[in-house]
Structures are given as structure tokens and as C-alpha cells.
């Protein structure tokens, strides 16, 4: 009998890149569902716009670069980038803002650096920062959650669609009328106006931990994150280090001065903290590779998030924290190498002979 040939090893993992990316998308679904429940279908529309633009951009970039289009398109990495970007944007963001962000993320932050596996900066965060500084006004049009007992009439689904695609609102409304500050925005502005945390938290927008609605969405993200941990798609080091350092810093701030620091629960359950901890910071391409390195990386992001929120001028520092720590990844990788078998444990880089 004749047999086929192959090279060892003959067994490989079932966790291929498309499988990993699909699992990430599935574990984002609880969060997206909660988001739609509280804020309407705008987020789903944004995800769709971003995903379509991302896929087209990726296909074009691959064609221009002469790379196999089907192989790289079918690994879903562009879709994941697009969804993560869309989840950071306000619900009523115009379609062309979302599209620009998605285009920048894929074409500039990913393919100009070499494509999958070669980018230094997280593409979703790079895209977010690009539209944040280019179209700052549109990035402040956050809406309030649909929780019934505040003085707010949410936009209907049709009106949301109409505004996203045409920029036209129903007759009686202006964009200022439907925009509200996010909980993080509120905290920042009102602390600046010298109110105490007690007074700020009396606002009906605030729930037990974070903002109302937002804390449910973040909990759903955490649920998805635990699913990824359980399946072994991500490892615990980055989320634990990130949340741990943020808890320590926020807790310390709260203990030192509870009137001007919102406290650990608020920090963890508002803004994009949990999305970042489980989905964005754990992006394998832009993260460090060794476990020690991951602990340092996660801790750095947590500290930077706290610093930017407390002392910086942006309400939520997640995107900038990620990009700043992305810059340090090669350095961290260089200095957190484990000891090779058979070499004595020293602090310096070892050579086999002098």
C-alpha cells in the first residue's frame, strides 16, 4: 500500500485564527445585546457599517499588496476590529465618521504596518483616536440610556437610522436635545465645577456601580470575557493585571479623598474598561507575549486609564492608554524573557559562549 507524506508534527490545534476570531465575535454578542436594549439599534447599524467598510478596505489592501485575499478575509480579524471600534462610538455617529474610522484602522493602522500580525498599534484604538481628533464634535454626541425614569425621550429606531445615514433629525429635535453627557463625562465636568462625588452621584444617570445601563453593558462584556477565558482563547494575565491595578489606584484614590474620586466600582463598570480588559488589551498581535510581560502590560494600561481619567483632559482614557502601552511592548518583551533550559539564572542576556 502506498502512503502520503507529511512533516511532523501531524497533529495541530483546532484553535485556528478564524476560530479564535469567531469566538471573540460570539463573546461580544451579550454586550452588544445589552447595548441595543439600552441604547437602541444604532450600535448594530454602526457595527454593520464598520464591518462592511473594514471588509472592503481589507480586500482592497490585500489586492494592492498582492496577498491572498480569501485567506486573510476569511480570518474575521477585520470584522473584530470593526466591531470593537463601533462599540466605542456614540450610537448616533454619522455613517461617514464610522466609515472613516474603520478605513483608517484597517488601511493605515493594520496594512501599512504589514497586515495581520505585524501592526504595532491596536487598529481599533488607532481608528478611534483618528476620528476622535478629526471629528471631535461628533464624538461627543452620546445619548442617554432608555431607562424610563429620567427626563429623556430616546430616538426611535427609524429616526436613528435616518440620522446616521442622512444627518436629518425629526422636526422637533436638535442634536443637542438628544445628547447627554456620559457618566464619565459628568464626573469630569462636575468635579471641575467643585461638586463633591456625593452630589454628583445623586444624578439619576448613576446606578449602583457605574452609570445606569452602562453597568449592565459592561457586565455583559465581562461575561463574554469569562467565556473567552474558559475556552482558552485568552489567558488571565492581562485582564487580571489591568483590573487589579485599576482597582488599586481607584481604591487608593477613594480612600484618600472620597469626595473627589469616584471609587473602584465606578471605574471598572463605566466607560470601556471591561471591554478593554477582555477584548482590546488582550489582542494578541499588539500585546506582549510572555506572562510576566503581560502582567506588566496590563498593569500599565490600568494605571494609565486611571491617570488619564483623573488628571487628563479626556473623559475616558482607554484608547490612549492602550496606544501608549503598545509603544512599550517591544521593550517589555525584550526584558521579560524566561530563563532558557540549561543556562544559569542571571539578570543579563545570556549567550552560549562569550
Amino acid at each position, binding site marked *: *500500500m502506498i502512503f502520503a507524506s*507529511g512533516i511532523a508534527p*501531524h497533529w*495541530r490545534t483546532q484553535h485556528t485564527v478564524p476560530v479564535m476570531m469567531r469566538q471573540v465575535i460570539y463573546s461580544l454578542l451579550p454586550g452588544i445585546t445589552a447595548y441595543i436594549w439600552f441604547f437602541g439599534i444604532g450600535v448594530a447599524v454602526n457595527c454593520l457599517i464598520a464591518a462592511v467598510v473594514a471588509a472592503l478596505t481589507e480586500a482592497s489592501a490585500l489586492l494592492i499588496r498582492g496577498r491572498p485575499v480569501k485567506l486573510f478575509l476569511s480570518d474575521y480579524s477585520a470584522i473584530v476590529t470593526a466591531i470593537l471600534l463601533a462599540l466605542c462610538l456614540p450610537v448616533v455617529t454619522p455613517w461617514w465618521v464610522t466609515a472613516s474610522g474603520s478605513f483608517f484602522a484597517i488601511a493605515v493602522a493594520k496594512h501599512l504596518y504589514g497586515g495581520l500580525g505585524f501592526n504595532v498599534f491596536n487598529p481599533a484604538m488607532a481608528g478611534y483616536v483618528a476620528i476622535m481628533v478629526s471629528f471631535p464634535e461628533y464624538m461627543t454626541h452620546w445619548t442617554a440610556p432608555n431607562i424610563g425614569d429620567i427626563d429623556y425621550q430616546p430616538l426611535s429606531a427609524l429616526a436613528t437610522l435616518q440620522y446616521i445615514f442622512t444627518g436629518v433629525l425629526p422636526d422637533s429635535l436638535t442634536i443637542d436635545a438628544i445628547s447627554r453627557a456620559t457618566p464619565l463625562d459628568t464626573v469630569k465636568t462636575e468635579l471641575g465645577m467643585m461638586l463633591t462625588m456625593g452630589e454628583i452621584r445623586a444624578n439619576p444617570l448613576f446606578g449602583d456601580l457605574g452609570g445606569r445601563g452602562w453597568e449592565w453593558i459592561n457586565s455583559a462584556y465581562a461575561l463574554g470575557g469569562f467565556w473567552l477565558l474558559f475556552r482558552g482563547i485568552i489567558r488571565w494575565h492581562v485582564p487580571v493585571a489591568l483590573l487589579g491595578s485599576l482597582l488599586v489606584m481607584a481604591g487608593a484614590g477613594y480612600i484618600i479623598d472620597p469626595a473627589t474620586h469616584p471609587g473602584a466600582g465606578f471605574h471598572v463598570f463605566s466607560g470601556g474598561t471591561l471591554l478593554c480588559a477582555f477584548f482590546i488589551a488582550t489582542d494578541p*498581535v499588539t500585546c*506582549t507575549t510572555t506572562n510576566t510581560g503581560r502582567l506588566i502590560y496590563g498593569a500599565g494600561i490600568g494605571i494609565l486609564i486611571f491617570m488619564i481619567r483623573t488628571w487628563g483632559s479626556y473623559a475616558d482614557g482607554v484608547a490612549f492608554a492602550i496606544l501608549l502601552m503598545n509603544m512599550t511592548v517591544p521593550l517589555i518583551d525584550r526584558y521579560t524573557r*524566561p530563563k532558557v533550559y540549561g543556562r544559569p539564572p542571571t539578570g543579563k542576556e545570556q549567550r552560549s559562549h562569550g
Partner: protein
Amino acid sequence: MCPQTNKPAAYDPQPPRPEWGIRPPTRKTGSLKLPILEASPPRWVVIPIEQCLGVSARAIVTPGQHVLTGEPIAQADSVTGTDPGPKLHASISGEVIGIENNMVPGTSAHREPCIVIRSDGKDETYSEYKNLGDPLQMDAGKICTLIAEAGIVGLGGALFSTAAKLQNSSGIRMLILNGAECEPYITCDEMLLRERARKVARGAQIMMRALGAPDTVIAIESDMPEARVAIYDAIEELGDDRIHESVVTAKYPAGGERQIIQLVMGEEVPEGALQNDIGYVCHNVATAAAIAEFFDEGRPLISRIVTVTGGGIETARNVDVRIGTIMADLFELIGGYYDVSSHLIMGGPMMGVCLPNDELPVTKATNCLIIMKSRELSPPRQEMPCIRCGECNQVCPAQLLPQELLTASKQHDMEALDTLGLNACIECGCCDYVCPSYIPLTAQFTSTKLEFRAHESGMQRAAHARERYEARASRLQQEQAERDKQLQEQVDAVSGTDSIDAVMKRVASRDKKP
């Protein structure tokens, strides 16, 4: 070593569980159901002449000659220069039909000279090896000579001359017998330990005598409880308290030589050194059993246990098969193929070699033959770029960073490869197994190692040439200094207090004299 008891570390009730390694499905139950089958001698055998690592061998029989089972038919050269080269023996009795080039199992489909013997149906034994005497009374040198005479080489797959390995050892603290069969599918060592543990223990005694080692430890994995009991009973029966048993975690690749030393003894073999240098010698349990068989029964190495398994074979089992049996005949013997299969792998699924057909002979290195159907293999996928997930870094048993090694090897960056420790790679395939991008890491590292070693030997030659150059430069300098000194002495001897003018006057006055 466990500091409290001063015994191998794995005596602790909780064997150390390393961070490295993987736990693939073991697929061993199929071939463990039936006892070892003693295969009847086949009608003909094709025995490759070179079955010792690193040395060439010559046939000592001629076509047409009649040989008995166990008669020497080839002699290999010495490995180190001081050890006796191992012999090769006829595995059946009959007539030597010829010495021909045949395809042999290996990484490439190459042809090697083989001795072909046709059976005469009688299986008469060569009786010169019976009654050799009590090996525990012989001196070490004699034991090694007899081991080479028996043709015993490392049966874990390496085929290194056992006599050479036993001979060049002094200051050995512990003999480690490696029964930790970590690769999936392979069960030949486990069955050997279940059924013939006494031979393994007896072999340990003989090897301890040859090495001068005070203790032996037989290492097995935690998923071999029957083998564990069998070894315990065998040691009790022999009544030798120098032989110990140790259980290591059932992870792949716990059975690698460096890894087993790390797990059992808690020490690492330093880079560039051998296990002997830290006082340990590792041998496979089957090698020990073969030694016992030779000294106690007069049977040289003419057969070995092979696991035949996989979805494509009718009955999976372990067979004690004569060396040189054609694989197709072996499969027929145990019931034939179950179905058309896509791959025949010699070894395990992690490090095994794909064979082109089943007309190849069983050699001393054949520990397992897996007839795999395509659904038992991972479907091939196109390689994608490294997504830096770091899974390979988690599983490497040598604590290397395969992800960074890949970058360095693609850039041919020799310094980085040195810093990252490429030479410590044991090519186990764990990094390939976990890679989501299906990058052929092990193959890349195997080929890079050649380039790296060429570069390293170039650097060593350069250092050597620099020493010679500097030696020559200093020699020339010294010669020049001596010449200058001599010249100066001559000048000093002549000059004294006279100047040139006085000398000229003296010469002139001398000339003037009548």
C-alpha cells in the same frame, strides 16, 4: 533531589507538574488490550547494515552463506575510538541471499545496503552466547565489550551504541531508565514494563555494575498504574534496594532525556554539557531488557517490541517482531488492514516520520507504526502570519520563545538565535501543535539549526585562526627582539671605548708599517 529523603524528586506524592508541555489525546487504550505477541520468524528479512548512530558498518557474511538465528552478520565501527563497535545479528536462520541496496525507513526515502536472509524454516539458535557467566561478577570493560557483541544500541529510537554510552562514564550518581512514553499511540515500553519488568530490573543491575553507579531509578508516567505495580513487584522479587521507581506527570514531552532528568532529579543539564557531566546516564527501559536477555538467555538483539496501531489496522497490539521483518508482512500477521489509510507513521504523531509504503523493513529504531486514516490527522491549512499569541512560549519544554526564534530565524540573525538559545530546542513539536497560524515552526528550527551551527563553527575557526595569528606575531616579534639583542651585544663587544676615528687611525698606521 528531594532534600528531605535525598531520593529522586518525583518520590513526592505530587510529582512536579511542569508549566511546559501539552496534553494531547493519548489514544493508547487500543493497543494495550492484548498481550505482546511473539511474532513467528518471517520467511525473509531485510536487515539494514548500518543500525548504529554516527558510524558506518561492514557486513561479515557473504551471499550464499548459511547463518543461524543470532549469528553476527555485520560489525560497526567504534563510536569514540575506544569502545567496541556494536555488531549486527541475523534475526532468523537461513541463507544469506544477498547484500543489496534497499529503501529503509527514515526521514528521507534513501537506499542503504541491507543483508537479505531467506528463512530455512528452522530458526536454529547460535549458541556461542549462552553461558557467558554472571555479569555481576564481571568487570565493567568486559560487560561493555559483551554489550557491543550483543549489538545493543539505544532502543528509544536514537540507536546510539549502548557500550559507548556506558563506557565513557565516571562519577555517575544515578542511572535513569526512561519508561516515560509520552507520545500518543506508543505503548511498547508500557507493555514491556507490564510483562517483562523483571528483565528491566535485571538489566538495571548489569548496567549499574558497568557504570559503577550506586542507584537506579525507573521513571514512568502517572497513567501507567499496571506498569508501576509490575515494576514494584519485580524490584521486590530481585530484592535489590538500589533500584527505585519514580512517577512523572503524563505530559508530552516528559520523556525527553533532558526533561526526564529535570522532572526526576530536579536538575537541568547545563548548555553545551552532557548528562554524564552532571552524573546521570539515561537509557531506555527496552535497552535494559535487551541487556538482561543477552546475559541471562544468550539472545543478542534480534527482535524488538513494536506497537502497531491506528485507525487503519484491524487489531492494534504490540508485537515482539524480528528485526528486518517487512512491515507489510507484520501487518498481515496481526490481521491485516482494516481500511484504506492515508499515512503510515513510524514513531508518534508529534515527532514521527511518514513512510512512503509498507515494503520497508522493521529496524532497531522502529518503536511504533501508526496506520492513520486521514480523519485522525489534522487537515492541512495554509500558513498564516504569526499573530503573537504567545501559546508557543507557554508550552516549550526548553523554556524558549519560539515566536522570537521564528523572527530571528527568518532574518538569519545569528546573534539573536544564540541569545534565545536555539541549541536547546529538542524539536518536540509542542510549539507547532498549539500554533493557531499553523506555522511549521519545528521544520523551520531544524533547518535553521544547520545554518546556525555552520556559523558557530565558523566563529570557532575564526577564534582559533586568531590565536595562531597572534602566536605567530609574537613569535616573529620575539625572534626580532633576539636578533636585535644579538646585534646590540656584538656592537657592544666591539665598540668598547674606541671611536670610529681611532679605529681608522689604527688601521692606517698598521698599513703604513713595513
